[in-house]
């Protein structure tokens, strides 16, 4: 957490400065600053509802911030035109929380979709690329299935194959481990690591499973209350002595992140006279 931003700035693929986002009257980010170093796996962690998915949507230009800059590979995302944004997105892979496979197409066609839309490749080459990617996620045999025939974990692996089919420079994983059994989780973890090690793909990983994140991530940002509250390698964070890391990585029930959604006095809600303790 004590590492200055400047050390990573030169190598940063994604730079977020002074990000401010208000959604439905709720402040999601307030002057958020972070750097995603090139060629590394960076995990974004934080309590539910803290805006991790929103951050990914900012990075890909799906959502414009209220203030601040988001630079991806030197380009200021909120200021790009639609066609410039599409050019940038061709180099970004995105793994959706709910897989978002195209339900009309088979597994094979889903993975082939980005290739067919943007490149004019011979059918044989498309087939080889798609089968290679499906083999990497262990689903080459499922190429002929429809998305409705897949379990949640399988659908996620197909979505992962689709996200990497064009060997992007940046991959964003939104909760990639949810719903995976331990075998698939290990495979996906290994895959994320391998993609990073062999192809040098920069990865942003939004996840809650610290044990899994600790095995894959080079750098972890902990976001809470619209700001970065801790930053460091997984090892540094487990050893760090801040109330945020103690609660989030140490599993303490009480801490700076309240478990209860803000509410009025509990006793009052149940119809008893108010207590001095209030909502807590």
């Amino acid at each position, binding site marked *: 957490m004590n590492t200055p931003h400047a050390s990573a700035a030169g190598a940063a693929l994604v730079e977020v400065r002074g990000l401010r986002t208000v959604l439905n009257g709720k402040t999601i980010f307030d002057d958020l600053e972070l750097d995603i170093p090139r060629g590394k796996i960076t995990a974004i962690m934080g309590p539910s509802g803290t805006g991790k998915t929103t951050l990914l949507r900012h990075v*890909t230009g*799906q959502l414009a911030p209220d203030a601040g800059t988001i630079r991806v590979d030197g380009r200021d995302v909120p200021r790009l035109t*639609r066609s410039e944004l*599409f*050019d940038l*997105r*061709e180099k*970004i892979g*995105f793994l*959706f929380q*709910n897989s*978002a*496979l*195209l*339900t009309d197409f088979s597994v094979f066609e889903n993975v082939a*979709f*980005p290739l067919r*839309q*943007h490149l004019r490749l011979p059918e044989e080459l498309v087939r080889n690329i798609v089968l290679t990617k499906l083999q990497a996620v262990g689903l080459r045999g499922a190429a002929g299935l429809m998305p409705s025939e897949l379990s949640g974990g399988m659908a996620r692996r197909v979505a992962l194959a*689709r996200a990497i089919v064009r060997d992007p420079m940046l991959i964003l994983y939104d909760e990639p481990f949810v719903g995976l059994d331990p075998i698939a989780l290990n495979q996906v973890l290994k895959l994320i690591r391998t993609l990073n090690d062999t192809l040098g793909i920069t990865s942003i990983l939004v996840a809650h499973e610290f044990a899994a994140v600790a095995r894959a991530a080079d750098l972890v940002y902990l976001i809470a209350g619209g700001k970065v509250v801790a930053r460091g390698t997984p090892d540094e964070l487990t050893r760090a002595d801040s109330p945020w890391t103690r609660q989030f990585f140490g599993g303490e029930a009480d801490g700076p992140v309240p478990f209860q959604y803000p509410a009025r006095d509990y006793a009052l809600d149940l119809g008893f006279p108010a207590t001095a303790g209030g909502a807590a």
Partner: protein
Amino acid sequence: MSAERRPSMLGDALAQVGACGLFLLQVLAAVPKSLRHFRETVRQVWFVGAMSLVIIMTCGLFVGMVLGLQLYYVLSIFGGTAALGTVVSLSLYRELGPVVTALLFAGRAGTSITAEIGLMRATDQLAAMEMMAVDPLAYVAAPRFIAGIVAMPLLACVFNALGIFGAHLVGVSWLGLDNGTFWSNMTSSVDVWKDVVNGVWKSVAFGAVVSLIAVFQGYTTPPTSEGVAYATTRTVVFSSIVVLALDFVMTAFLM
């Protein structure tokens, strides 16, 4: 609650019309790009056109048979049953063909377009396309819009043909009208340009309106099951109203 200003129904409706107009411009701008997905457009023509054939043919046949019966009764009062073919074909070409086909089309194809796009929105498929740098307006919206414009006039022609066949079945085969009179009176009094082609123009316009409403409702639906349900209902309600209103305007101009 009372402090909140609730938008009026009229304001809401006007805002919807405005949003739909802007959406039309976006879809039209995406049409050239959608030509790259020509196969998708062809698939949609098959989906909204060929798949609607059964309902259009069945309804066309029955509408023609009812017309044959009713008009035979009315014409027999004046001793003019020989004009049955003429009256049936004129009412089908000029009015009933385009309008009833458009209403059936809204119920059969419009709802499925809205529900399909609404579910694609709810399951992030449209967002996934955006993320793969594929414009959903060009890949999803424009092909369905074009398919509606192509399919509607063809369906209306099939409806007309089956309607006349139905009237012939009732008038000639059942009630004993002379076959030659039925056809010759029809061919001598129906004008290709004034009657048939004007009807085709109407169905082109209705096809554009119904598919625009269906695509717009699906594209802008809130991503919930309730949202998709409401959007599907709105497609049928709005399409029916707009088709009938537009029919009046077009009839006044094309007379």
